[in-house]
């Protein structure tokens, strides 16, 4: 089993490496180079040349890549093109904010969707199940900003919660939780639907198997069948779905941060895209992609561990 986990880890590291190459190398895709593209037609050759030197474009790509990767490994993400500040400084506080928001949403969403999914599987084809089915199918199809503005419309106007999630570094936890409640709730609504549908599907899938029928025949109650007999075997797909949705939270956070003017990494990234601040976007993309890959890796390992047949394989 250790060998298998080591294999997965190695694969994860390889993926991370390829992603870093892709994120770095994307600049090279341009027919001209990024200096001309950003400075536009009117730039004098001197400014283009200076800009190119600044980016290090006068050196071969693989050397630049190694420098960049070495810097990233030491926590030095380079400098912003727009305001010359070190990217590490720009990102540090924002990354913590984004992680806080994602974690907040996850703490609400995961137990909620598991409970709703198990209930829907327990009472399947009932009115509750059908209602939940239509509701979740709809909320999957809503754009995040629609959900966000609906919440603002109903909850922020009456003054219950602030519509702008401005957090100051010194604020205490309760205040912070109150201020970021609406963005967290938006994210929760967006991911809960998917997670509970998959939980329901995973459990219902198992309910057709012979050992469940056996349990039913010997007189086990429906709640015990689902919780004790079906759930442990459904853990692997459920863990996968949770990880996938947590990974989705990471991207969903971008739009939600913009709606609620939340000072997180996503907002920084969107601002940098419109300013064409390539180095900042690269750094942010690298962080988001790393989190995404790591979550998938954790899911992979955990879902293996949840299956005794894989753990004790001979």
């Amino acid at each position, binding site marked *: 089993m250790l060998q298998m986990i080591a294999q997965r880890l190695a694969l994860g590291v390889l*993926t991370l490496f*390829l*992603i870093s190459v*892709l*994120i770095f190398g*994307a*600049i090279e*895709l*341009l027919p001209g180079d*990024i200096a001309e*593209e950003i400075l536009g037609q009117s730039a004098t050759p001197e400014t283009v040349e200076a800009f190119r030197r600044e980016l290090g474009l006068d050196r071969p790509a693989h050397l630049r890549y190694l420098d960049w990767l070495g810097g990233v490994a030491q926590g030095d993400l380079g400098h912003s093109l727009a305001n010359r500040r070190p990217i590490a400084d720009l990102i540090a506080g924002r990354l913590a904010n984004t992680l806080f928001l994602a974690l907040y949403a996850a703490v609400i969403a995961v137990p909620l969707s598991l409970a709703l999914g198990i209930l829907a599987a327990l009472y*399947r084809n009932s009115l509750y199940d059908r209602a939940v089915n*239509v509701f979740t*199918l*709809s909320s*999957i*199809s*809503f*754009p*995040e*900003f*629609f959900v966000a*503005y*609906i919440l*603002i*419309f*109903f909850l*922020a*106007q*009456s003054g219950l919660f602030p*519509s702008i999630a401005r957090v100051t570094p010194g604020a205490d936890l309760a205040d912070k939780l109150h201020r970021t409640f609406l963005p967290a709730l938006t994210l929760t609504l967006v991911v809960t639907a998917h997670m509970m549908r998959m939980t329901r599907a995973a459990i*219902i899938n198992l309910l057709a198997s012979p050992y469940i029928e056996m349990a039913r025949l010997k007189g086990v109650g429906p709640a015990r069948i689902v919780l004790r007999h079906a759930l442990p075997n459904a853990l692997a797909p459920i863990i996968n779905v949770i990880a996938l949705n947590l*990974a*989705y939270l*990471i*991207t969903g956070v*971008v*739009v939600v941060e*913009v*709606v609620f003017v939340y000072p997180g990494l996503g907002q920084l*990234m*969107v601002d*940098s*895209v*419109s300013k*064409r*601040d*390539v180095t900042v*976007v*690269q750094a*942010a*993309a690298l962080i*988001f*992609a790393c989190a*995404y*890959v790591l979550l*998938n890796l954790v899911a992979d390992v955990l879902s293996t561990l949840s299956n005794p047949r894989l753990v004790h394989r001979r």
Partner: protein
Amino acid sequence: MESPITVWQAIAALLAFAAGAAVVAWSFRAGALALAPHAVARVLRTAPLTASFGLVVILAYVVVALLAPVLAPFGEREVVGGEYLPWDEVHLLGTDNLGRDMLSRLIYGARNTVGIAFATTTVAFVVGSVLGLLAATVGGWLDQVLSRAVDVLMAIPALIFALLLLTILGTSIPNMILVIALIDSTRVFRLARAVAMNVVVMDYIEAARLRGEGLGRLILREILPNASAPLVAEFGLRFCFVFLAISALSFLGLGIQPPTADWGSMVRDNATLITFGDITPLLPAGAIALLTVAVNFVVDWMLHRASGLKE
């Protein structure tokens, strides 16, 4: 400030909407059953209410998109009055942040937003399924190269990758179509390849190969017909994802650019109204949501039919 609409009123409105939708869906199905030719009617009869509601909505959007210049009371980019005018007889839904007629822009938005999303989906779909079918049929190193490339591309979250590529290429409509089509074609590739893999191993394909059929004929005439059902459903799902992605980018100000009327950027431009208790900016967002819900309902039904699931 007192909210003009309470939560209870909203729930009542929602229930009324659901009831109305059910009636519309039911009468559409009844009408279609009476009018449609026998073969179509037989399929439609199995459609649940949600699916027929989806069909009505999709049909309505197509009609609005095609007839936009006829239906819209004012021009798409025409400034017709003051900014943020309230709803009245002339401007049924008021005006936007620059004094353009909201209703007209909503109607033109159907054409722009849905049209661009449809074009993007088509590109993604053609590229993804052609490469996927090719990879499954040819196999060997071509399959390996394409599959590994797709693996790497899919390891980066879609929106993040789109943002990165748009920074490098610059934000414009053609660039956005290209970027999103590229990203979504990887998902189509995965599915097309997986479906085709199951078909390729069948005996009749072996027979066709021995008969000396060329690659093109093999893919188009032998494999595609047996792989089409999941691919058609995938087209619907893909459309939803593309549509939401484009709306999200436009909402962030990085997609469809003004003055083109587009639902995502309309929400962004008029969002301040929401804090004053005006629901107008929610309408374009709702239009996006309604269409994706409708497509999802129809796809759900098609998948159900194709798989013969009873659950």
